[in-house]
């Protein structure tokens, strides 16, 4: 992945001068970012740097005070996560937002269930349970998580990595353009983290644009194409993992050094 971009290429997602305040607390003090198809943009920053606020604004969970968001060069406005999803931005929240007592297929289709064809679906609003299950299985297989075969398994019976995989699959499965992953490996062991990172790489190779929020520097440096460093509500700089070391990234993040732009 090269970071040298043809200036003619429109970013998939672009944020310009995002401002969000909570009373006297400034969450975002004018943050801009660009995200291109087939790239992983990592966002790092200390606690309170505005990472969560930034992704909440991008995913429609928070309304902006100022600034604008563009998808493929077209201005969009999100009043709710549903608007963002309609525009093609899917978010995997740290809490995963899966319903533990529902099965995998139901979770994949939660909030966008498919009715069965014919009068049963039209009049009685019956769901196409079988169709959803088989499509769910196909999607998981496409994403290389085909080892989960039983779509009727309840999500709470899955391991942490599998749950994360289901959440990521749900985000990527329905023609989305941008996937935002909030600390996807925070609760996982080494092996499961590796599996999720492979999944992220696979999504990138399929042309999705991915925003990855993480505290884990080795992971960030492993998968990110560019790294957006958030500090005190502002962007302290965007670096590449090749041009900088982890120590330098942390130094910028904590304000020990500054990046001359």
């Amino acid at each position, binding site marked *: 992945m090269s970071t040298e971009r043809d200036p003619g290429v429109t970013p998939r997602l672009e944020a310009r001068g995002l401002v969000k305040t909570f009373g006297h607390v400034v969450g975002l003090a004018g943050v801009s970012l660009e995200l291109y198809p087939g790239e992983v943009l990592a966002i790092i920053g200390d606690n309170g740097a505005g990472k969560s606020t930034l992704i909440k604004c991008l995913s429609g*969970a928070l309304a902006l005070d100022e600034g604008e968001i563009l998808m493929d060069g077209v201005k969009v406005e999100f009043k*709710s*996560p*549903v608007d963002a*999803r309609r525009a093609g931005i899917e*978010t995997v*929240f740290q*809490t*995963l*937002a*899966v*319903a*533990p*007592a*529902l099965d995998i297929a*139901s979770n994949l289709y*939660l*909030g*966008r*269930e498919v*009715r069965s064809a014919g009068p049963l679906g039209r009049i*009685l*609003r*019956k*769901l196409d*349970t079988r169709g959803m299950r088989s499509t769910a299985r196909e999607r998981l297989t496409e994403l*290389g*998580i*085909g*080892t*989960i*075969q039983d779509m*009727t398994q*309840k999500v*709470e*019976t*899955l*391991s942490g*990595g*599998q749950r994360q*995989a289901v959440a990521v699959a749900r985000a990527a499965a329905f023609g989305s353009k941008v996937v935002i992953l909030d600390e996807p490996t925070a609760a996982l062991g080494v092996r*499961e983290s*590796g*599996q*999720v990172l*492979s*999944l992220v*790489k*696979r999504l990138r*190779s399929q042309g999705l644009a991915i925003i990855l929020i993480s505290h884990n520097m080795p992971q960030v440096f492993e998968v990110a194409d560019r790294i957006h460093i958030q500090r005190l509500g502002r962007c302290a700089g965007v670096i590449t993992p090749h041009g900088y070391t982890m120590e330098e990234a942390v130094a910028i993040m904590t304000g020990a050094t500054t990046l001359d732009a």
Partner: protein
Amino acid sequence: MTAVIEPTGEVRPREELGARVQHALHRHPAIGPASVLVASVIVFSLINHRFLNAVNLSLLIQQVAVLATLAIGQTMIILTGGIDLSVGAAAILAQMVMAQTAANNGVPGVLAILFGIAVGAATGFINGFLVTRIKLPPFIVTLGTLSVYTSIGLRYSGGQSVYATSMPKFLIWTGNYVDIGPYQLTTGVIMMLVLFAVASFALTRTAWGRHVYSTGDDPEAARLSGIKTGRVLLSVYVTAGVIFGLAAWILIGRVGVASTNNLTNANLDSITAVVIGGTSLFGGRGAVLGTLFGALIVQVFQSGIALAGVQSLYQVLAEGILVIVAVALDQWIRKVRR
């Protein structure tokens, strides 16, 4: 780049019997109450052979119809993680409106029933509004509306009972007998069974049902998935209110009198049926068919203990123990992980 998320949770080579039972119950919550029902029927029929005769079984199911219907609405509410303590009061109010408008105001039977059902829906709407808009806990809301609906019912009826003789035929239609072989059911019983079928379909086969379960399971996850949880909750309370109205109709047909003294234990009994039926009080888990078994279990104990010639206080004792066992079982099932 073909790493595979391995099904670490799938490995269950030496699964013990206990774990398998736990897993099965986890998947099909109605199995538990169904087995308890079958077991108790067998035990009571061994104690007294008359238990299994057609007359007794017919009476048993007629007696359970009202409670079981109320428990359908209660199940929906408990599935969302809520609880409704005003069930009986709402049904009584609906019942008094049906009987009074028909007997005293000369409203045609069909219209009187519709008025009653509308009142049921309104009680549900008020509960739902307070829960979703004012954000009060369902327990507190319905504890309050229990008193409110009870007193409105008393005030409206002036404490006067209305007897079947002064009601139009349509009001007591639910008490009409329907013979099926040696068994004598009522239209009210059939209505109850149909309601269970419809509720079960709606909860397990429609998007609305999925949304009800997910709202009860994890409201935040449901919201982030784009489900309008407030609207789902409100729809559940209103639907339950309509069901309480229908239960009121079945009640009039069953007892032949509309009185504020009916259904004194319905609030707690309906919760008992739901809990024994395997639905979790924490929401998101359970099945409405389990509630049918739960209501039947309560009735089977009542009838069986009476036929066994044991004091009825033991029936109350048994019911109490069953509730505790059912909740303990639920806790155990919920522990299933991997």
